[in-house]
């Protein structure tokens, strides 16, 4: 099985050096770098930038949002409650990825539940204002990068909570107490004691949030506007266009980014927090 997997990865690499003949549409099996050259066309560069930017912001947001729950589980929950809370976080991590994306199609729909509550609280003006921005906005939440961003955070959040919680678990309570005994305000303790110790956990979580956002094509297809993300581009190149070499070359991009990312993360001690 490992052979199949590695063999496939290898054949992916090989394929990325082939090219597709523009006239016949056939894959020409000879070594060339011209497929890689196609990656650097402005259109494809834009796809890479767009995807990486989204992955970056999703990672930041997940890190911030994960903190209260992770901290609560690590420091305050009783043993019984902790088990249940952890199950509550891991179930969405393992289950029904597709269905969880689908649920946001219902929620974000123009006539859907979120709009209903936004109108109920008189916030529709604010939403319109948010959606009017170039880059994050669109005609409605379901068709905007902002909506996509919400869904990405929702889907990958558990991958951040678990490593952050594990890292926080290792912060000795005595250290937190010592800090406050020595006169640090809660915020100071948080910034100078807790945050540095939780940082490897955040990095570990970011491996998942970043890499998974880079490669995802379901969310950009389901939610969001017609602007392509890496995953979508790969999907459509191999599907309708049958251009496996270009799809393969575009996949090598995220893989390379992730390998560099993993190496940095290992240096920062993130693997101990896994």
């Amino acid at each position, binding site marked *: *099985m*490992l052979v*199949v*997997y*590695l063999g*496939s990865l290898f054949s*992916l690499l*090989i*394929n990325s050096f082939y090219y597709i003949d523009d006239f016949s549409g056939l894959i020409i099996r000879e070594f060339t770098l011209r497929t890689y050259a196609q990656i650097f066309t402005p259109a494809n560069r834009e796809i890479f930038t767009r995807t990486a930017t989204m992955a970056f912001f999703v990672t930041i947001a997940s890190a911030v949002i*994960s903190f*209260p*729950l992770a901290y*609560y589980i690590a*420091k*305050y929950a009783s043993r019984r409650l902790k*088990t249940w809370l*952890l*199950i*509550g*976080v891991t*179930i*969405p991590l*393992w*289950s*029904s*990825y*597709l*269905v*969880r994306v*689908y*649920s*946001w*199609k*219902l929620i974000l*729909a123009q*006539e*859907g*539940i979120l709009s*209903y509550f936004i109108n109920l609280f008189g916030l529709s003006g604010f939403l319109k204002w948010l959606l009017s921005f170039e880059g994050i906005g669109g005609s409605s939440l379901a068709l905007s990068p902002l909506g996509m961003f919400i869904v990405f955070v*929702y889907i990958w*959040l558990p991958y951040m909570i678990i490593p952050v919680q594990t890292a926080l678990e290792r912060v000795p309570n005595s250290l937190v107490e010592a800090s406050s005994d020595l006169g640090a305000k809660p915020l100071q303790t948080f910034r100078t004691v807790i945050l540095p110790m939780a940082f490897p956990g955040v990095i570990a979580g970011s*491996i*998942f949030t970043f*890499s998974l956002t*880079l*490669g*995802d094509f*379901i969310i950009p*297809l*389901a939610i969001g506007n017609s602007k392509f993300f890496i*995953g979508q581009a790969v*999907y459509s190149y*191999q599907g309708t266009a049958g251009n*496996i070499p270009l*799809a*393969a070359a575009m*996949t090598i991009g*995220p*893989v390379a980014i*992730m390998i560099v990312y993993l190496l940095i993360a290992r240096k920062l001690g993130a693997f101990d927090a896994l």
Partner: protein
Amino acid sequence: MHSKKAPLGLTIAAFGTLLFLHVPMLIIFLYTLTPDETTYTFPLPGFTTKWFGIALQRADLWRSLILSLKVATIATIIALILGTLAAAAVYRSNFFGRESISFLLVLPIALPGIVTGIALRAAIGGFDIPFSFWTIVIGHATFCIVVVYNNVLARLRRTNPSMIEASMDLGANSFQTFRHVVLPNIATALLAGGMLAFALSFDEVIVTTFTAGQQTTLPIWIFSQLNRPRDRPVTNVVATFVILITFIPIFLAQKISAESSDTEGENK
């Protein structure tokens, strides 16, 4: 240890996050009851349970369901066998390249599914293998193996090696030792890993889109509805069904893992 009570703000934020993780799935349940066929209007314009009956009569759904169940079952069986063997090999021996093997085994989960998917697609295309039931199964087995492997390896590392030595000293051969000592020890880990693998396979869509060709598993069916919704209410019913069928094994698997690490914590 928990002498202090959590600040109210933290508690609210923590449970708010938990709600954020779970409420969207409940909303699908709600929408199975809508009589509205063309939009997602909220509040629901009425209530009906007719979609469940309609979904039951759809032959295409049954075909997809059976395909998904078959794939998940076989991928899980393959994963249980190969995952256990891989875990045993990494645990027991100190062969050359052991560390890299254990790193490679985690790759299918660390890399986004699209990489596995397009890699398999490239291989399938490269060797001119026709798409079939087995191409889906192999795609699923890659990540199912990882889950079983991780569960079993974690359990083996917590198993006392002297038990295996004692069994061998008392004259059991390796098969007997495996059957009577190792297997009972890792049984719940296998159960948990197997259930996780089954649930993962049952709703996997990313790798499947690259390895299925024209075949439609249940997640592929839902996926096609995501782009071009034709049967919105029926999709809600199917989605609910997928949630339920994956929720139960995952819940049980997590419970088993939590309990086994709990009891070991008490033994220390």
